[in-house]
């Protein structure tokens, strides 16, 4: 599957201009609120007609302003999971789930049969209930199932977790991960949360003020300064769990990381997101400190931002970003090529 977007859209004084090609897997549209993320997915989904441009999925053109072509949303076969679930209040969960099936008969698409979707999302016990009686997290799971059962060739998810509290997010994220890994439907995922993007995305498209400022693999893009509040992503595998201290050890290219106990079994792949301001730098291997993680690396780049600076480290190929004061940069003479040690407290890892 490939999604090819090249559009311009004007609405009042807002100008959205986006050009990108997405890869299979999860493509995250990332940016602050008001950057045009929702407008962009609405254009892909056919809810908004762009002022100018072209959109194609798998080579099939959905919008082409030059040819005056506009495929209406009901003929696009693009599933959409909205921030506000939008379940039909007069139908029960089962009827909501089956709604799209009426119209998708015989068009092939991803083979998603009812029972496996219900099992994947853990909603078997909700089937006879009405949307009004569901919790926010349950509603979103049903909404995901409903979109999936319409056999979409592309799934749009517009901040599906934004309206939920921390506990509900943690409840749904694993389901979206399973969706990515098992259902085989490519996903265009809108988010302003770095932790979500780090955990789910394969490719990241960064939007700022209606413009695409960066496109690329998540490991390369997220450490960039304009990707939210700054931070880096490590691809890791779970090595083992320490039940006594409730700690999980992860192995990555940069070295071993000890983080609060994760639920996944040993051997699972996990993305660790490390905020730049949680990383401390030391010129010598620190001893007798409480922080459990010390990674050796070499400074690749120092990006000053006023009174602070983002120091990008190369830790055996993996990128790590540390945010320090300009004063520390001078005091420690931090410059490209210098060998340093990054210190990260285990408790600073977000449990997402």
């Amino acid at each position: 599957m490939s999604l090819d977007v090249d559009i311009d859209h004007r609405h009042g004084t807002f100008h959205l201009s986006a050009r990108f090609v997405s890869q299979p897997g999860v493509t995250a549209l990332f940016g602050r609120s008001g950057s045009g993320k929702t407008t962009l997915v609405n254009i892909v989904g056919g809810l908004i007609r762009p002022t100018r441009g072209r959109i194609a999925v798998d080579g099939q053109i959905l919008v082409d302003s030059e040819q005056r072509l506009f495929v209406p949303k009901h003929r696009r076969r693009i599933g959409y999971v909205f921030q506000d679930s939008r379940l039909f209040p007069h139908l029960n969960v089962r009827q909501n789930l089956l709604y799209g099936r009426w119209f998708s008969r015989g068009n092939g698409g991803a083979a998603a049969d009812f029972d496996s979707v219900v099992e994947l999302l853990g909603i078997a016990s909700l089937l006879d209930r009405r949307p009004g009686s569901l919790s926010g997290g349950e509603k979103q799971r049903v909404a995901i199932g409903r979109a999936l059962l319409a056999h979409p060739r592309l799934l749009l998810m517009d901040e599906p977790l934004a309206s939920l509290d921390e506990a509900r997010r943690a409840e749904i994220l694993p389901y979206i991960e399973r969706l990515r890994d098992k259902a085989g439907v490519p996903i265009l995922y809108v988010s302003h949360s770095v932790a979500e993007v780090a955990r789910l995305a394969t490719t990241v498209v960064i939007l700022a003020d209606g413009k695409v400022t960066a496109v690329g693999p998540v490991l390369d893009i997220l450490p960039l300064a304009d990707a939210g509040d700054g931070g880096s992503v490590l691809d890791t595998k779970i090595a083992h769990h320490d039940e006594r201290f409730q700690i999980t050890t992860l192995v990555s290219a940069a070295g071993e990381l000890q983080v609060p106990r994760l639920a996944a079994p040993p051997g699972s792949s996990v993305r660790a997101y490390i905020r730049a301001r949680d990383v401390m730098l030391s010129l010598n291997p620190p001893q007798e400190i409480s922080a459990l993680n010390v990674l050796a690396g070499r400074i690749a780049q120092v990006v000053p931002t006023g009174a602070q600076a983002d120091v990008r480290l190369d830790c055996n190929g993996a990128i790590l970003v540390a945010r320090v004061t300009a004063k520390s940069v001078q005091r420690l003479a931090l410059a490209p090529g210098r060998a340093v040690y990054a210190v990260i407290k285990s408790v600073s890892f977000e449990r997402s």
Partner: protein
Amino acid sequence: MTAEEWTAVRLSLLVAVTATACSLPFGVAVAWLLARGRFWGKSFVDTLVHLPLILPPVVTGYLLLILFGKRGPIGEFLDENFGIVFAFRWTGAALACAVMGFPLMVRAIRLSIEAVDTRLESAAGTLGAHPLWVFATITLPLCLSGVIAGAILCFAKSMGEFGATITFVSNIPGETQTLPSAIYTLTQVPGGDAGALRLTLVSVIISMGALLGSELLARRIGAHRVAT
């Protein structure tokens, strides 16, 4: 009650039910157009629909007589091609009632369609539903209480319609003499007071019954919706 009085009651019910049933599909369509449509001349259509509400009923009745009478352009066409005659028939009374009740019906349905969340409709669209299906499976079920309210209003208006009916199809016992016309006739003859009072009572009972019935129906739909 006398036989004539019973005839008037039966005729009134027939006229009101026919007027409501025949205008309901048009009422829903026009209400949808006014609520969701964006087209040139929308305010003109809106005004046209509401015209019977503000015109004197006699004027509406007279316009119907001009258009749908035996010599009227529409009346003549329908008579020659389909054998449908409105002038001085009970069907004419039903037409007059439908026209008079139409603005009330459209108003109620339009308000309830406007209250349906368009975001649900676009969600249904992304699931592959054609706009007509979206209307039938999402919009209509969600605005059903408004449709019922509109139908009841039209029915009640038809039961009480007097001016346009008597102007268009006159006051023929057994053919076009509905309840209000019969009551009016009874008040014009000596000793008709008792009959007029009896018919008034019947009129009150039917109107209250309709209102009560719509309340119950609306409540059942409401309960059905929130039930878990």
